[in-house]
């Protein structure tokens, strides 16, 4: 039974045909849990939009107040850190959801004719989402934001011909400052959302014109189809609830400490990007010197152009992965490289080698004596004293560290580091930890 209000609306707006076309779209082969990733991405985008709008209530996009306004949100506003956490983890979730969505489309050959345009608009949407990630990262205006953005923009500078001209355009001037922050803010909250919403509508419009692809065995899809409502919507809704619960749990349990306020004069800071850019960060470490342009723009350009025109590169009409050895191998190889680099990067950054318990004990001492009050390791800790992220490369001699712990000022004239009461074993353990902090472990 429809409510009287619905009947009243229907008698004026003739909703029935609209409702039918929205909800009774046939899904070839029936609803499936494998089709949820597009809806999951859309849900996360809506959540980002809502939490983002609320964050702007208390955010000031100027270098003198951005950092303070974020701290204000964190400490003074009810649920402020929760809303910021939802936005932060929602962004990560979106990268995951898009990755899975593209993987499913790739595996099912759903980009093949007649769905080339659907794929291409999807790739542009993906690029815009990366633009969101890049511009959003600067907004907290802490050290990590400032220096990570500095690195990102400098990479653009390596592009031949237009690079030198593009960098000041992105920064809004010569240096990274007030104009950069305000244009990144405008891009993040006005320009990109407008572009994204328009292209999402186009993406969905094309989807409705060409219809969902269905199973890769076409005959299976032709045998029977199922309406979008209610079973596919039910699956989408369950997944959305799961995502919301997961993102909310992360927002509640994982604190998102700001590093110190951005200090353009502190060139010792070593920024670390978000986890989803870590594989690329690792790639940059391998490709330096004359090979650097390969990582900073040649490979990315090849990747995105290849991705965009992929439906025209892969002309094999088969959709079943078994009949597509070239495409599946290419995709598998790409994933292996990305996840391999990601794993190496995470190991380098965070793992303490399990072989040497002295390093673990040294790390515990580092925490116990509050060394992070002054020193910083991979973005965590104060900026008063030298950054220790790669101190093992800078000071490879164990003796130096031991002497330095015993009497800092004797080794480094003018050092204001206090003498800590460490016994012989603690000295050795702490030195082991310092020596373990290297670029490549």
């Amino acid at each position, binding site marked *: 039974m429809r409510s009287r209000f619905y009947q009243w609306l229907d008698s004026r707006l003739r909703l029935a045909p609209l409702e039918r076309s929205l909800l009774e779209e046939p899904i070839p082969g029936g609803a499936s849990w494998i089709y949820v990733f597009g809806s999951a991405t859309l849900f996360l985008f809506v959540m980002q939009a*809502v939490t983002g709008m*609320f964050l702007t209530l*208390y955010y000031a996009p100027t270098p003198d107040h951005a950092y303070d306004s974020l*701290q*204000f949100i964190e400490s003074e506003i009810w649920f*402020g850190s929760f*809303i910021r956490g939802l936005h932060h983890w929602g962004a990560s979730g979106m990268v995951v959801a898009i990755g899975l969505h593209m993987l499913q489309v790739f595996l099912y050959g759903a980009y093949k004719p007649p769905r080339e345009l659907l794929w291409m608009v999807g790739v542009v949407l993906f690029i815009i989402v990366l633009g969101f990630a890049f511009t959003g990262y600067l907004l907290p205006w802490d050290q990590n934001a400032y220096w990570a953005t500095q690195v990102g923009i400098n990479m653009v500078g390596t592009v031949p011909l237009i690079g030198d001209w593009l960098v000041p355009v992105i920064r809004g001037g010569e240096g990274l400052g007030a104009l950069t922050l305000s244009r990144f803010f405008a891009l993040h909250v006005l320009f990109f959302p407008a572009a994204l919403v328009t292209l999402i509508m186009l993406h969905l419009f094309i989807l409705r014109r060409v219809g969902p692809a269905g199973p890769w065995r076409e005959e299976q899809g032709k045998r*029977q189809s199922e309406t979008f409502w209610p079973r596919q919507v039910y699956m989408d809704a369950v997944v*959305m609830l799961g995502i*919301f619960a997961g993102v909310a749990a992360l927002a509640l349990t994982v604190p998102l400490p700001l590093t110190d306020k951005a200090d353009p004069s502190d060139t010792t800071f070593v920024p670390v990007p978000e986890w989803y850019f870590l594989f690329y960060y690792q790639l940059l470490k391998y490709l330096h010197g004359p090979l650097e342009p390969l990582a900073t723009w040649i490979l990315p350009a090849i990747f995105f152009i290849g991705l965009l025109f992929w439906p025209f590169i892969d002309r094999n009409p088969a959709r079943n992965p078994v009949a597509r050895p070239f495409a599946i191998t290419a995709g598998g190889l790409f994933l292996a490289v990305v996840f391999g680099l990601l794993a190496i990067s995470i190991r380098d950054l965070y793992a303490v080698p399990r072989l040497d318990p002295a390093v673990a004990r040294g790390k515990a001492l580092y925490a116990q004596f509050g060394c992070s009050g002054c020193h910083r390791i991979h973005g965590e800790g104060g900026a008063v004293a030298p950054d220790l992220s790669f101190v093992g490369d800078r000071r490879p001699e164990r003796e130096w560290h031991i002497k330095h712990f015993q009497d800092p000022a004797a080794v480094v004239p003018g050092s204001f580091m206090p003498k800590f009461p460490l016994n012989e074993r603690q000295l050795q353990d702490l030195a082991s930890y310092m020596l373990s902090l290297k670029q490549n472990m």
Partner: protein
Amino acid sequence: MPDGATSQHERGPVVTPVGARRRFFQRVIAAAAALIGMGLAGPLAGYVISPALKRREAPWVDVGAAADLPVGEPKQLDHVTTVRDGWIESQSHKAVWAVKQADSGRIVVYSPICTHLGCGYRWESSERVFKCPCHGSVFDVAGSVVAGPAPRPLDILPSKVEGGRLFVQYKQFKSGLPRSVEL
């Protein structure tokens, strides 16, 4: 889909769940939507209204040595106070009027703003009254209205003496009302 579970389509039959199964899916969809909606709406509502409900206690500011105050003679005490406006902190110069009572030695501190329309008033030592230059309100040394349009006595600020120093909580009050109402 009111009439039956299937209908013909160019790609074979289109099926849709019916009966109890359909109702189950619909209930789960509604429940998921409700849970997500509530999970967001509650925190977001709190997020929006919290600055309106939060009242920050005004800080106690040191305005000078209590012993420096002459007995029975109001003295204007200038001091710098930190004003917090959201995430912006600024220093602001404020002045208050302090009077050490002749009989008890107690110190009373007045808000420096006339209760009529918010002008700054001054002490006329020859006439022993506070006079507001704007509309001619006159108050005696106890803060009571002697003449003019002021609707209430001078507003008294919370004050205390600790270690020989006078501390004041600076507050502002609505002007023009017969009772003292904090802003």
